[in-house]
């Protein structure tokens, strides 16, 4: 037996020595990491605990910074709404390391505020029952007026009736989104309204997006939401929201908010005949057809600008943030970033307009946050504050709550920056010039497409998946663009690209090889 061990030792030793000399050993060790380009700075995070436990409570004597709303105030201060109902103002938040952060309570006694917006010099927040302006009349840094900006939507007392926002659009409307209740009890039903034709019961305007106009009127705008926990505007001032996978919602999705649109969930149509409704009442809902079929059968149904394929691009989409830093946050200026609750990460979205409607692609961006990512806010220096709280569900990051900041390291990651639809394929725009050989080889790319089922069940599998033949890959002269010509693209299908064969001019692999384009419309001509 001794002899056998010796032989094994010598063999292994040789093998290891050989490995250490092979060139690929070095390539492996320099494989790009997300942290090389975007660094997470922890301002504060809690201990781990069971976020679904019935008796969950924060550690005694600690400020439970379950960050549910963020607003950057100036070059030093950040306002943070927390779920227990307070707003805190943190100073010195840009310090790195953040060792001198101070905490000051600005407002309290709010009912689960789930958003915060600096608007016309004061903070706006969404409580369960109202949109509230927090005013400091005597300038002592503490709120002394809780002014009701809007109220009147249905609140039956069901826990799932979260209210999110506000977000301001290009005309000055303040948008909010209202969760559906889940499993209304009898006493809650008595506070709800019923559409007996569709057999749905919900509180008034639940599942709707509403606005408060600059004149102060509260108006319902669009419906079909299930759990719309994030709103955000792009640089043009169009406002978007994310929805979360569940009944009638095949996977997480991102939509442009606009009047008259219906997105997923029929429960919201409990309010469709109420005065002010922007949606024409319908008689029935198709249940169990594919999503492309559903859009034909149900004309009010508008496809999302972007589907976020389940697990591949998160499990529970939250906040939306546009990179408005003009390059201070890296090469993705003008793109949207979407928070991800369950996987404790952030995904990235590129949008383009085809025939007047937004559509585009999503990409994994950065993972590894300490808890569920609920809120994103870009700071004055371009870095991004990440508000964390996982209470009620679970997250990959084990902490219960906290605040982190994502800082660009000034290095450009090699990424697919944009994926643009073309009549016969896609155009990819990279953050850095590609190596011509690898990017012009069709074997460097793999493309499949799939759709979803529109049904009352929870989520949907990816259906009718199909591989597409890539006919050619042409690299532009500057090496930043690759034009893929692809056979038989399918409208209303998600097209999943894997470009793992592509290398940058420096020989780097892509930081993220996958992109997912929601091809609602194939453009008629080259753009």
């Amino acid at each position, binding site marked *: 037996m001794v002899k056998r061990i010796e032989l094994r030792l010598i063999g292994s030793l040789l093998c290891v020595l050989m490995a250490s000399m092979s060139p690929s050993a070095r390539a492996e060790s320099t494989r790009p990491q997300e942290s090389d380009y975007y660094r997470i700075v922890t301002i504060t995070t809690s201990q781990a605990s069971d976020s679904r436990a019935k008796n969950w409570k924060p550690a005694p004597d600690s400020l439970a910074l379950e960050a549910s709303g963020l607003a950057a105030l100036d070059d030093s201060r950040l306002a943070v709404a927390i779920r227990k109902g307070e707003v805190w103002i943190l100073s010195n938040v840009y310090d790195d390391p953040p060792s001198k952060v101070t905490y000051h309570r600005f407002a309290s006694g709010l009912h689960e505020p789930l958003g915060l917006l600096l608007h016309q010099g004061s903070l706006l927040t969404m409580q369960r029952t109202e949109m509230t302006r927090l005013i400091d009349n005597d300038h002592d840094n503490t709120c002394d007026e809780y002014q009701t900006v809007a109220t009147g939507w249905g609140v039956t007392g069901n826990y799932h009736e979260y209210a999110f926002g506000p977000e301001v659009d290009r005309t000055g409307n303040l948008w909010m989104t209202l969760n559906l209740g889940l499993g209304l009890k009898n006493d809650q039903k008595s506070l709800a309204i019923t559409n007996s034709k569709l057999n749905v019961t919900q509180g008034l305007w639940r599942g709707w997006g509403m606005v408060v106009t600059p004149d102060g009127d509260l108006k319902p705008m669009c419906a079909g939401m299930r759990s719309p926990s994030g709103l955000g505007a792009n640089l043009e001032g169009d406002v978007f929201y994310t929805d979360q996978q569940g009944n009638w919602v095949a996977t997480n999705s991102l939509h442009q908010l606009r009047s008259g649109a219906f997105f997923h969930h029929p429960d919201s149509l409990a309010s469709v005949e109420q005065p002010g409704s922007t949606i024409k009442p319908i008689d029935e809902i198709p249940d169990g057809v594919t999503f492309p079929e559903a859009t034909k059968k149900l004309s009010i149904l508008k496809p999302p600008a972007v589907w976020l394929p389940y697990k591949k691009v998160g499990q529970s989409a939250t906040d939306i943030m546009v990179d408005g830093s003009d390059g201070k946050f890296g090469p993705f200026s003008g793109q949207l970033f979407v928070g991800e609750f369950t996987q404790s990460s952030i995904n990235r979205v590129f949008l383009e307009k085809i025939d007047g409607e937004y559509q585009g692609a999503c990409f994994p961006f950065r993972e590894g946050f300490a808890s569920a990512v609920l809120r994103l806010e870009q700071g004055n220096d371009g870095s991004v504050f990440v508000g964390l709280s996982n209470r009620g569900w*679970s997250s990959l990051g084990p902490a219960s709550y906290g605040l982190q900041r994502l800082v660009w390291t000034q290095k450009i990651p090699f990424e697919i920056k944009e994926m643009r639809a073309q009549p016969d394929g896609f155009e990819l725009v990279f953050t850095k010039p590609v190596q011509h050989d690898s990017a012009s080889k069709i074997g460097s790319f793999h493309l499949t497409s799939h759709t979803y089922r529109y049904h009352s069940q929870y989520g949907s599998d990816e259906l009718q998946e199909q591989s597409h033949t890539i006919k050619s890959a042409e690299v532009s002269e500057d090496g930043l663009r690759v034009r893929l010509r692809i056979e038989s693209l399918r409208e209303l299908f998600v097209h999943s690209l894997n470009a793992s064969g592509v290398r940058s001019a420096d020989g780097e692999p892509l930081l993220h090889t*996958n992109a997912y384009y929601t091809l609602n419309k194939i453009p008629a001509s080259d753009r």
Partner: protein
Amino acid sequence: MRVHFTSILGSIIFVLGLTFFDCHVFADHPFVASYERFYATKEEPDELAGQVLLTELNCTACHPMDASLPSKGGPVITGSGNRFHRAWLRSYLSSPGQSKSGSTMPHLIHQLPESEREMALDALVAFLSNDPAVEPPIVASGANPVAHEFWLKGDAERGRSMYHQIGCVACHAIDDAFKPAKKTESDLERKIAALGLEIDELEEMGLAAPKKVKPVPMSRISDKYSLRSLSMFLIAPHVIRPAGRMPSLKLQPHEAADIAAYLFTSPTHSKPRNDNEKSTVNSSVQNASVDQSMIDAGKRYFEKLSCANCHPMAGIKPKMSKSMKELTLSLNSNGCLSESSKTTPRFGLSSKQVADITKAIESLKRKQLNSDPKKIALDQVTMMMMQLNCFACHERDGKGGVGPDQWAYFENVQQVDIGDEGRLPPPLDHVGRKLTRDWIQKVIEGKGEVRPHFLARMPIYADHSKALATAFVNADRIESTTSSAAKPNNQTSQAIQTAGRELFDSGCVQCHAFRGESLPGTIGIDLADVGTRIHREWFEAFLRNPASLKKNTRMPTFFPDGKSAVPQILDGDATRQIESLWAYLNAKDQPLPLKLEQSSSQSFELIPTDKPIIIRTFMDSSSAGTHAIAVGLPQQIHFAFDTKRLRLAEIWKGRFLNAQGTWFDRFAPAATPLGTNRITLPQESFALFDQDGNFQLVDTAPEKGQTEKQLENNLQKKFLGYRTDERGMPIFRYSIGRFLIEDRIQAHDDNGVKRRLKILTLGDGELKAREKLWLVIADDAIEVDQSGTVSTRSKLTVRTAEGIQTRLVQRQPATYWMVAMDDRVDGIEVVYQW
């Protein structure tokens, strides 16, 4: 050159690790954990030892026996060529014991002519690569995060910690590179240390010492698996190995990925791969495709070598051999026990293993039916505990338990020293007497979690839960008590339960949790609903004398010499006290023990001291409802305002509110006032009078069938928010029709609430002339005395200042007392007392 230097250094470390690996885990005969632990070094052949080998080496898969010795069965190997690296699979089939030290899989290929063997190995690998690999479904949900390609995202450092903390090391090798967070001495170590000795010295002195436990060998992980296939295996081992010897440790996908990453990089478990290989194997096993003729040939060999006897495969029937009782046993015969047989599998047995198996088979042949059911049950428990290696963690009747080298790796979350029972898996002595059959079954199925403070996890043995639970109950049941445990308890009166609550406060609360609440810093089993787990008889016996049922327990006796330590409760009668505790612990509707209630309140009870506390929350519909603002005043007089109906909804004295539900409960329960002296005000709040004296109530109670919207339409009313004054008192603002109103509510003396209502704007003059706004108090029996004070049936009295216009209106079913709102520039004042 620097790179090379570190690589060489790494390889030296690796070689040291490898030496460690071989020394510790290498076994030159089949390794069956409990056999190694209890019998391998015993001199005398043992029948039970042989029986364990008969099932664990799958002897009875070919040699039929009665149901008492079922073969454990092998792994599901359909598609295993797509789970394992085919090179590993081929080398394993070629010589299992050499490829995996201690493998219980026999050598089979020698049964083929030598010239055929290489081809047969290729063919078998091809056949086993024909189907897709069997994998568990991974269902992602809000409660179960599953990152894309999670198996690539494992963190070896985290994996190493988990591996050493959740219980893997009870069976598998410890990595010396990992140090436990804190070395906690076991009770035995403490005693030995008190003698000035070390464990190793005990045996030298001829004393009975806890025996070291050899780890169950693993294959060289990275030779065999990809990160993906290993992660999938760790998430649901029973999918691949239905025998359940490797149990599920309830790993979430990312946890499995962490452990896989660790096992891949740890020199204790893997050899580092060269990087050319790594780039291909990290994500999945990428083996070349196979051709059909080889697949067909492989299937023929699979049948010929009777592989299906242990590895069920669709379309292939097992081939049975002589029954166990017909076997002739002789080492010289050409059977499975010999190492030279050319026609039967070779197991590579040690001579001791041969002797034990021989003894077991011989006694089986002349086996007489044991007539003592108790003995049968006890033997069955021991047998199952050996087969499933329960003994690796649990002691029973002095046998087994966590081995001395492993003690330090069992910790609780806060490293609190509460003795062995606060960190080591519990002993299973008389467990069938203690726990109900249902609960035992639940625990074995991984659903009965009462020790959340343990870092180690109770694994899942779902397929054995029923049999094992039944065996424990049959072995340990005390006949006379089962009936008394089932006896309905007719003494659960309120008084008895209240006594139980006081008793809990007087002792139990120092260590035990109750309904998820515990005193700060204490960790202990939650005693709520103990009757769903524990038999009444055991509960009483344990309370009377804990040490008699659990040696070294830190549970103190509260009844020394049978006398209660708390004589003032239930006359100190031990029997009645235990009765009352039992009743309280199993009651659903009793309040928390006072000390727990207080400790919970300390964090969450809102106690206004110098300033008012204002909190928006849900309240009951009979109170301020879904749009409530509750205000607690330092005078300990509090009120709730309904911002939807614009009315003072409830007033109370004493304690204010517990905010835990509002602040932190996912299900957002309605907040309930803590004070006992509560008054709910009537629904009606304002009335509008026209010039003809007709009035309309601004709000009415919702009637059945009336929709929210219809209510909203009653009158245009709008809550506008509140301001706080310099003392922090809220001033509510709202509008009704064209009236803008300011409403201040504050404490009046120390026994009431004073409300000042002021109309700020009245809209246009024409409307002012036509409409008058009145505040309304309604009750079904209002009386007004000479001073103008109104009494209602709910002990509430209301009055306003002299000179303010009031009127009394009867309109079925109530009487309405009304106060004119616009009589004074500085508003009207109304005082509520009760």
